[in-house]
């Protein structure tokens, strides 16, 4: 019984923490395509803890078996820090499943990485890192930006 209750609490807490609003300094819709959700399975290459958005670089094998790198925008370090995350929350080599959206601009970043917006990064143990509803008008936002 207890375990059922605890499991439900954990599940509900997961929903709760998953919906803590995240922040962005630009309109989601201006840069990312909410009709292009993608799920990426790969390994963390690097976490760049930088402004105005931290970026997670994830190596993913494409259909042909070739490894491509996705550069996934997340929140700003100050917003992430207030939610309890830090620059060690994702480490190089971590296996992650990322819920993301493609950038509307198809150009890769200068380093050749494909560009997207990462909404959550699930580790192998199920822990979701940087997960949340960004306050940027994105598809999982609680409110549209700047109302």
């Amino acid at each position, binding site marked *: *019984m*207890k*375990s*059922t*209750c605890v*499991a*439900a*609490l954990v*599940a*509900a*807490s997961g*929903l*709760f*923490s*998953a*919906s*803590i*609003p*995240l*922040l962005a*300094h*630009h*309109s989601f*819709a*201006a*840069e990312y395509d909410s009709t292009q959700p993608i799920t990426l399975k790969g390994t963390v290459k690097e976490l*760049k803890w*930088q*402004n*105005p*958005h931290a*970026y997670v670089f994830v190596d993913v094998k494409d259909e042909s078996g070739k490894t491509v790198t996705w550069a996934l*925008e997340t*929140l*700003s*370090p*100050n*917003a992430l*820090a*207030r*939610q*309890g995350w830090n620059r060690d929350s994702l480490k190089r080599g971590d296996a992650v499943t990322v819920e993301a959206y493609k*950038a*509307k*601009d198809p*150009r890769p*970043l200068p380093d050749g990485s494909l*560009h997207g917006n990462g909404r959550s990064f699930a580790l192998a143990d199920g822990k979701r890192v940087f997960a949340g*509803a960004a*306050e940027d*008008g994105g598809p999982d936002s*609680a*409110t*549209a*930006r*700047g*109302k």
Partner: protein
Amino acid sequence: MKRYYGWVMAALAVAVLLPLAPMNISAQAGPAKGGGKAGDKAKDTLTPTGPTPRTPDGKVDFNGVYAPANFANYGAAFPLQPWAKKIFDDRRAGLSKDDPEGYCLPAGVPRISPFPEKFVQTKDLFVILDEGNVHSYRQIFLDGRGHGKGLDQLWMGHSIGKWEGNDTLVVDSVGFNDKTWLNGQGAPHSDKLHVTEKYTRPDLGHVNVEITIDDPGALTAPHTFTRSFLLRPDWELLEYVCNEFNIDSDRLVGK
């Protein structure tokens, strides 16, 4: 019965916690462990309660770090003149791709960022430090000076304040450029923008600001709305250096 007890408790747990899920208050990007929906008094565990703090001379003491409570819900219905409405519509159609904030430019007044603000109050000066945007700041002079001349085309305007009794600080701001947006949706303003803010602190945890925007260059009538801030006694302002790696400005394509 026992068999179902766990599920009943589980359902109760979900029922209690689920309403917390659709949080819509951006500024409460507080640690998840803090719990509670900061804008909802019934569940707000982050905002302290207590009487209004006052300075030795009896005036309200606004000092503190605050999270904006209704960042996403302010001033939605600005009464725009036709030319301003057209610009607004164009910006909506462009999905706010040209928002100055996306280019790490100042948000202007009275727009705020979703990040916390710090109020620093002395007898002659009230300073608002904004963690977000470009770490912008506002100096509100309380020393009796006027606006003076030659103030035009400022991003954050020129602000002077005076007390109405001991409870209300009235801030008057002019001298703006016309480059900032009134909100993230793109409501424009002219350089005739005149902003009046009335700051009150009804209790320890809350600051309310009644904001009146008067802009004969862009609005058909003055527009008044209220914004609230929630005290965050355990927070400090954190760094946010918008221009460090702002690749977005080159990739905000809109449609």
